[in-house]
């Protein structure tokens, strides 16, 4: 009978090998293409009329009481604190109305749905068409699909004030180029596609991870090894540094089918195709320090040539990279972000100090660093309560987060 226990234990062990999987999320786009075909783009003056803090006037409190609305090009985004939802809406002007179509998504869970919104002539549409007014009282009205409901739910948002801005500026920095694979955003972490999505999620800057191939090519990838978390290629196992760049081009397909970008192509893509204003290079390949700084400097030159105001920072996260940087002939020739102790930050004369959020607000140190002309970014803050406290009681110049949507909603609406 004792063998019964052994058999049962074996069964339990087999059962426990199950890995917790997150529910997949539908990839929606709404009806944006047909809306874009019948509307004209909204220019920058009109965009500022639309952007702002809105209250929810419809009965449902699905998205809380207050949301942030941002208008950029043909894209209008909405960010909520409650359930951490973002709306990605595209559209433009048609006569005296603004027509928008897209989707909404709660990034901490699987909820998503299509959304159709508009600004009617008598509800601010005429003012936008004429390019006048502050937009106060403007009404965004429409319907959203909700998975558990049979019919669309009405949504009415009313603008009450312009969005909050910090005098010194503030960076909403998205982790891994915009978000982790576990956020199920429909694009893989650390890819160009994710970097293009990051402004939609609320980011103004991104952090990307740099690994090395066997032949010394800096690539944008987080883990030192390939696992089913990051790749879907069955023949790709073991260390990333065991494969040449050519091997990876042939073999490596990320979770959503993308290729692993080189650092250089990722930087050029961000400069050329996004409005992001900061890139934090989280260097995980210390031996490539010279090569990475070289690419960083070329990208900065490219940005200048393109007239882009973007900050590209060489990140020093640990002693390996620190020692490699100290030995580098290129030391001191490009902007640096240092995560280490303040005395090392001062020794390197780093442009940015980036302490871990679990050390707290460190108000005096932050103030000293800022007085010395440095910015201070804190990482990686995802908790709503602490995000509010860090914004209200702290004085950081940027926060790195896996939820730029949440940070954008709190920061821009100033729900503190």
């Amino acid at each position, binding site marked *: *009978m004792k063998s*019964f226990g052994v058999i049962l234990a074996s069964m339990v062990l087999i059962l*426990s090998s199950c890995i917790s999987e*997150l529910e997949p999320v539908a990839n929606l786009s709404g009806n944006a293409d047909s809306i874009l075909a019948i509307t004209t783009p909204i220019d920058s003056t009109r965009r500022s009329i639309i952007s702002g803090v809105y209250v929810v006037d419809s009965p449902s409190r699905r998205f809380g009481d207050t949301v942030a609305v941002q208008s950029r090009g043909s894209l209008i985004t909405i960010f909520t604190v409650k359930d951490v939802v973002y709306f990605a809406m595209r559209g433009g002007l048609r006569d005296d109305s603004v027509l928008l179509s897209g989707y909404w998504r709660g990034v901490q869970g699987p909820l998503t749905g299509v959304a159709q919104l508009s600004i009617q002539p008598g509800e601010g549409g005429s003012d936008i068409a004429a390019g006048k007014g502050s937009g106060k009282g403007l009404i965004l009205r429409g319907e959203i699909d909700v998975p558990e409901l049979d019919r669309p739910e009405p949504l009415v948002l009313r603008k009450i004030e312009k969005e909050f801005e910090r005098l010194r500026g503030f960076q909403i920095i998205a982790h891994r180029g915009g978000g982790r694979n576990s956020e199920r955003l429909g694009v893989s972490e650390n890819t160009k596609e994710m970097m293009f999505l990051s402004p939609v999620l609320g980011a103004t800057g991104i952090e990307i991870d740099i690994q090395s191939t066997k032949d010394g090519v800096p690539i944008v990838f987080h883990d030192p090894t390939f696992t089913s978390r990051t790749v879907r290629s069955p023949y790709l196992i073991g260390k990333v540094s065991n494969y040449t760049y050519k091997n990876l081009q042939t073999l490596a397909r990320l979770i959503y089918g993308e290729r692993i970008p080189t650092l250089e192509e990722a930087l050029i893509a961000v400069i050329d195709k996004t409005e992001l204003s900061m890139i934090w290079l989280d260097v995980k390949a210390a031996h490539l320090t010279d090569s990475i700084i070289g690419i960083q400097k070329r990208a900065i030159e490219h940005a200048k040539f393109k007239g882009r105001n973007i900050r590209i920072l060489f990140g020093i996260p640990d002693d390996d990279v620190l020692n490699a940087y100290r030995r580098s002939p290129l030391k001191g020739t490009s902007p640096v972000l240092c995560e280490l102790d303040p005395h090392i930050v001062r020794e390197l004369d780093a442009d940015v100090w980036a302490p871990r959020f*679990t050390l707290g607000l460190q108000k005096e140190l932050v103030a000293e660093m800022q007085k010395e002309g440095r910015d201070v970014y804190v990482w990686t803050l995802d908790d709503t309560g602490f995000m509010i406290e860090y914004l209200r009681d702290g004085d950081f110049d940027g926060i790195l987060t*896996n939820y730029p949507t949440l940070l954008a909603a709190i920061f821009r609406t100033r729900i503190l």
Partner: protein
Amino acid sequence: MIRWFALSILILSMPVALQAQDSETSVNQDSIYPSRYVYSTRPVQIWDFKAAIGGAITLLPQPLTESPVPAPSIDLRARLGLPLNFMAFGRATSNIATSFVQSGLAWSFVLGDFSAGAGWSAAYMYGNLTFVDGFNTSQHRWLNYPMVTGTARFDEVILTVRIEAELMTSLTKRIETQTIVSSNNVYTGSSVTIAVEQPFWKNTQVLFGTTFSFSSNPYQSWFLYNTFKDRLLSTEFFMAFIL
């Protein structure tokens, strides 16, 4: 919901007063090892105390950790027989960074080689990482665990299945001087435990089992500041020698 559950346990336990004499007899007659198990809720002699000491390893949810991360801990369990087929039980587990103390009451009845019961326990979790470089954080929680349980006896082996719900009534998170307090009855998830108690070697008796916990906020991973709404699986293996 908590009140209703407590009330239902009370109502369920009332007929036991009438059966008390019978059940004590059944314990003596039916149980081959009446005082050699700690996890089963099979009725035991009044004031009979038993404890077990061992270890547990929890595999933290992979979407949070991104790679398999085991969290080992020392594990103490005990139970005390009470009148009317009630039993007090408790657990203390710690790996310094995370400590968890739980105690509760359960009531059960016997049906031949089977027994079934229900119970309630309250627990306190304290997490502290101030001794780790780069962390100035701590957290504590109050938790409640209503549960139902079933036990089957197969000769010398006792198999117990326990289903618990987890209700978090208080959560306090601290980083440096910043403190966030929330105190709601939040249903965070449920767990299923399968445990076996059996003779091991010479006179020793062992308890081993696994808990499959589906929680949106597993206490073992408090330092990861989980933000997912999804309920994630964390698996705990435990083994203990019954003293």
